[in-house]
């Protein structure tokens, strides 16, 4: 499932013209990867005797993917915020969201 999500996101990033759609495509990619990571963790939970959603704070290996995904989500948020800010500025300067028109840099 996650691969499908990932490919959809990748397609969005590569082919869509509107900047906002590209940003959303990037978000989809990130969600797909994070989801995949958490699903991996489910297998880990299956192995351990403690099927815990809450943190049973004796053993750090069990909730490891969850901690990683938490960090990764925060990073994704920061990246999205930055890109959206840049996109807004671009809109001010170029007056359009169409990425085929925003290519003054050539060569």
């Amino acid at each position: 499932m996650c691969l499908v999500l990932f490919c959809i996101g990748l397609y969005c990033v590569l082919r869509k013209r509107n900047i906002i759609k590209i940003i959303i495509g990037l978000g989809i990619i990130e969600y797909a990867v994070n989801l995949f990571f958490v699903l991996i963790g489910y297998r880990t939970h299956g192995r351990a005797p403690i099927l815990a959603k809450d943190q049973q704070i004796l053993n750090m290996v069990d909730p490891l993917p969850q901690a990683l995904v938490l960090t990764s989500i925060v990073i994704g948020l920061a990246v999205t915020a930055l890109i959206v800010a840049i996109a807004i500025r671009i809109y001010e300067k170029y007056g359009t969201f169409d990425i085929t028109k925003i290519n003054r840099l050539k060569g």
Partner: protein
Amino acid sequence: MKILPFFIIIPLGTAFLISLLAKKIKNFGDVLANLGTLSLLALSLYSTKLVFAHKILVYKVGGWMPPIGICMVLDGLTSFMLVTVNLVSFVIALYSVNYMQKYTDKYRFYTLFMLMLAGMNGIIITGDLFNLFVFLEIASISSYALVAFGTEAEELEASFKYAIMGSVASSFVLLGIALLYSYTSTLNMADISLVLAQKGTGLLVSFVAVLFLMGFGLKAALVPFHAWLPDAHPSAPAPISAMLSGVLIKVLGVYAIARIFFNIIGINNIYLSILMFLGVVSMLIGVILALAQWDVKRLLAYHSISQIGYVILGIGLGTPLGILGGVFHLFNHSVFKSLLFLNSGALDYALGTRDLQDMGGLREKMPITANTNLIASMSIAGIPPFNGFWSKLLIILACIQSGRIIYAICAVVASILTLASFMKVQKYAFFGKLKERWQDIKEIPAFMRLSMIVLAIICVMGGLLIIPLFKPFLQSAVDVLLAGNGYKDAVFGAIR
């Protein structure tokens, strides 16, 4: 013994302190940033001494034993990269004192700069794969923000493209890490190589390797992932271009690829040939595209692609001489490419333009810029006795030695073309007649001059790094890469 976390603590602390206080106290940002980079440089030089003594050092974060805890590893490759990164950062921090006065919000620049530096240092010293990803993101995000610093239209567009591509690359890396974790259920680098040695590598690991190659290759601007570089590097302010081109693509790209492929996954001939092939392609395409450029910084950006191709070719050869050449070229390229970018920044600062066809005859007016540019151009083109010559010679010799004559010929051809394009730069910018517009420009301010002179001196003396007195500096880095899977034994041995 416990100096490793300082490489992250100092830049992080400096970044937030500057963000907090620099508005109130004048010049606080400059002083603190330069002090920070200077102390980092001193620490990294000290770390090389430590590595000579102990061969490898492991610092456990929080006292937790790996593989449960995160550990930081200091070995030959690490200390070498640390010295490279911090040296160049120090010089660039000096340079920025004057250059960034043209931009608003100078202290924010320092904050982002130190954050990027913290990220890069973190990548170098970490021994844990997810930690690598976190620091990779810190450095990347800071660099996206820094590229967009001037907020002109072109800069924003370049930064946007760079940010999107960089984020996609990071997602590839994260996916690779996720897959690798599912296979080995550990994140510690030494432990992963241990498990891989026991379990054997199969289709999954090859897929992961491809993912990593794509992700880190984009960060390193390997062809065919190089499309962001010619837009992003010129649009950034000059010290940032120097940082990006001089250290960032090396640390994030080349160092990560080297560490992962050599130490964790374990090299075999397939990976090496892929690396070599990509390296040669980057070399040629970079230099051919560079010939047609009239914008100084864009030309330099294309040359970065080409020179990184050299480094990857050298490292991809796998022989001791090849890796030595590649690693040496890494160091040299940091030095002279930063110098070249700082020069172009000086030109931009004094003239306000980057178009080569507008310049001419600046040799009389800006002697220091012209001379340092000459030194750097000769280094990058590989003219003796500057440092570029030695490293390129090593790489070409290693190619011939391992029987890949075609790659050696390509390397020589690329070198000649590099020489040609820098002759063009020299001719148009510095020699020739002085145009009417530039009659009363002045030489650039003091700090910029100082930093360029320091880098030029290192260029000249860089050739000395091969002589046996200084060779251990490079050799320790080479040994780590050659040890390959022995990395895990070294780390585990040093932990107890």
